C-alpha cells in the first residue's frame, strides 16, 4: 500500500480559464496605504535627500546599523545616537535578475546586492542595486565579486525626494 491514496483535486490549465471552460470572477482590491515612516525611517529619508546615509548606534553592544531603528533589537534598549556613515561599502552577496517584481522578463538584467556599508559594524548593510557592471551575465560575473568595493551613485540633489531610490545604484570603486 502506498499512501496517500485516492487524493482528490481537479487540475486546470491556463487555457481553461481563457476559453471559459470554467467560470471565474475577478476582483481588484483597493489596498492602498499611507505608512507612517516614524522617527528612524523618517530621519533616514531626510538624510538620503541630503545625500547622506544615516545609521543608529547602540553604545552597549557597540553596533552601528542601517537601516536605522530607534531601538537595539539585541540589547532591547533605545539606540544612543545617530551616526553618518559613508556611501561606500563592500558587496556581501549579489545576484543577477532576469525578471521584474511581477515576473515580467527583463531585457537587461538587474544586479541586486547586499552591500556592507563602510562605517557600520562588520556585516551590516542593506540591499540595493549595482550599476555600471555590464549588460550580460558573463560581463557581470567577470566584473562583480563578493567583497568588491562599491560607491553610491546618487540622483541629482534637486531630484531627490527622501527615498531609498535617491541612490540610483552602487558602482564599482577602485581600491
Amino acid at each position, binding site marked *: 500500500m502506498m499512501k496517500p491514496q485516492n487524493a482528490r483535486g481537479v487540475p486546470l490549465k491556463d487555457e481553461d480559464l481563457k476559453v471559459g471552460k470554467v467560470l471565474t*470572477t475577478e*476582483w481588484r*482590491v*483597493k*489596498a*492602498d*496605504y*499611507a*505608512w*507612517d*515612516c*516614524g*522617527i*528612524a*525611517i523618517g530621519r533616514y529619508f531626510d538624510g538620503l535627500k541630503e545625500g547622506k546615509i544615516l545609521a543608529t548606534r547602540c553604545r552597549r553592544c557597540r553596533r552601528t546599523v542601517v537601516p536605522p*531603528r*530607534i*531601538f537595539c*533589537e*539585541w540589547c*532591547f534598549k533605545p539606540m544612543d545616537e545617530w551616526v553618518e556613515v559613508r556611501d561606500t561599502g563592500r558587496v556581501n552577496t549579489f545576484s543577477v535578475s532576469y525578471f521584474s517584481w511581477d515576473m515580467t522578463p527583463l531585457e537587461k538584467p538587474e544586479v541586486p546586492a547586499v552591500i556592507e556599508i563602510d562605517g557600520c559594524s562588520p556585516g551590516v548593510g542593506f540591499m540595493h542595486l549595482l550599476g555600471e557592471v555590464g549588460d550580460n551575465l558573463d560581463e557581470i560575473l567577470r566584473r562583480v565579486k563578493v567583497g568588491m568595493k562599491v560607491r553610491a551613485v546618487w540622483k541629482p540633489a534637486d531630484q531627490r525626494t527622501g527615498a531609498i531610490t535617491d541612490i540610483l545604484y552602487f558602482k564599482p570603486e577602485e581600491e
Partner: protein
Amino acid sequence: MRERVAIVGVGCTSFRPLSPEVSFREMVFEAACRAYADAGLEPDRVGTFVAVSEDYLEGTSIFDEYVPDQLGAVLKPVQTICQDGITAIASAYLQLATGLFEVALVEGHAKASNVLYPAHIEAFAMDPVFVRPLGLNPRFVAGLEMRSFLAQTGNTEEQAALVVAKNKANALKNPLAAYPALVTAEDVLASHPVATPVKELDIAPFADGAVVLILARESVARTLKSQPVYIRGIGWMQDTPNLDQRDWSQAAYAELAGRMAYRQAGIRDPKEEICFAEVDDTFSYKELQHIEALGLARCGEAGVLLSEGYFLPDGPLPVNVSGGSLGNGYLYDASGLRSVLEVVLQLRGQAGERQLPDVRVGLAQSWRGIPTASGGVIILSNE
C-alpha cells in the same frame, strides 16, 4: 491540578485617531517597554511570543516577519496568530500549559489610520463568488444583523443609542481613550443613517495604538513585583464563516466561547459571579447582543437593564467602563487586548478615576468584526 496562568505585565500606548510621528515598530516598542517595566522582567525571561496581525491591515504580506525586533524577541520562539487578541492570549495560555515555557508575551497593534480604504479591505474578506461581487460597503452586514437582532429580541434602537452615550461618557475618565464625548441617545438617533438601522454614531471609529501583555505561570508570577491577575477561564470559538448561513440575530460565537470559559472557571451564574465586563462594542447593538450571548442578561433584557442603569459604572454590572471601542476607538484585533488591559487594571485597583470598588472577577470578550463570526472570552480574577 494544572498550574494557573497569570497576566503579570501590561503596557500600551495611548489610543488616538492618528499616530504619524511613530512607525508601527516604534509604537510597539513603547508598549513593550511599558509591559516589561510593569512586570519587572527582562525580555530574556520570555519563552514564547505571540503577535496578532493580518497582512491587509498592515499593507505587508507575511507581516509576521516584522514582529520580533521591537519586542526583544530576536531568535526566540515567535508566532503570529491571525485571530483576535483574546484568541492570541489563548495561544500563549496553551503554550504555558504544556509546561514548555514559563513566561509568554502577547502583542497586538493597529495602524488603522494608515489603511486608506478600510471598507475595501473588509469587502476583501467576503466570499469572492457568493457575496463580494455585489460590490457593497460591508457595513450592510451590520445593518442586516442589527435589524434582525432588534426584531428577534425586542431590544430597541434607542437602547442601542444609549450604549453609545454610556461608553463615550465612560471614556471621559480614561486618559488613553481617543473618542471620549458627552453625547445623548438623541444625538445618536439623529446621526446619518449608514446601513439602517445602523447610524454613524453607532459605529466605533478607528484608532491607532499598541498593547502588550505578559503572561506567566503562577510559580513565576508569585516571584514578580507586579500583582498577578489570574486567568480563570478562556474560550474562543468560530461560528460558520458564511454570511449566508449564519443566524442573524444571535452571536453564537460569543455564547459558545463564553460557555467554554465559564466551564473552565467553574462559573454557573455569570450574571451573579462576574463583577464587571468589557465586551465588544464595535457597533452599539453588538454590546447588547454580546451581553445577552454571554448570559450577563437574559435574551431581550439587555436594553431594558441598560436603560435602568444596570451596566453603568455605578450599576450592579458595569460594562465597558473603559469606554469600549466606541470610546477608545477600534483597534482591529488589538481591541480584545485593550479590553483585557482594562480588566487587569481594574482588578489591580489601578484604573484611576474610573476604578470600580471591590471587583474580584472580570470578563473580557472580543469579536473580529465584519464579516466574521468568531471571537474569544477570558475570565480574570485577582484571587
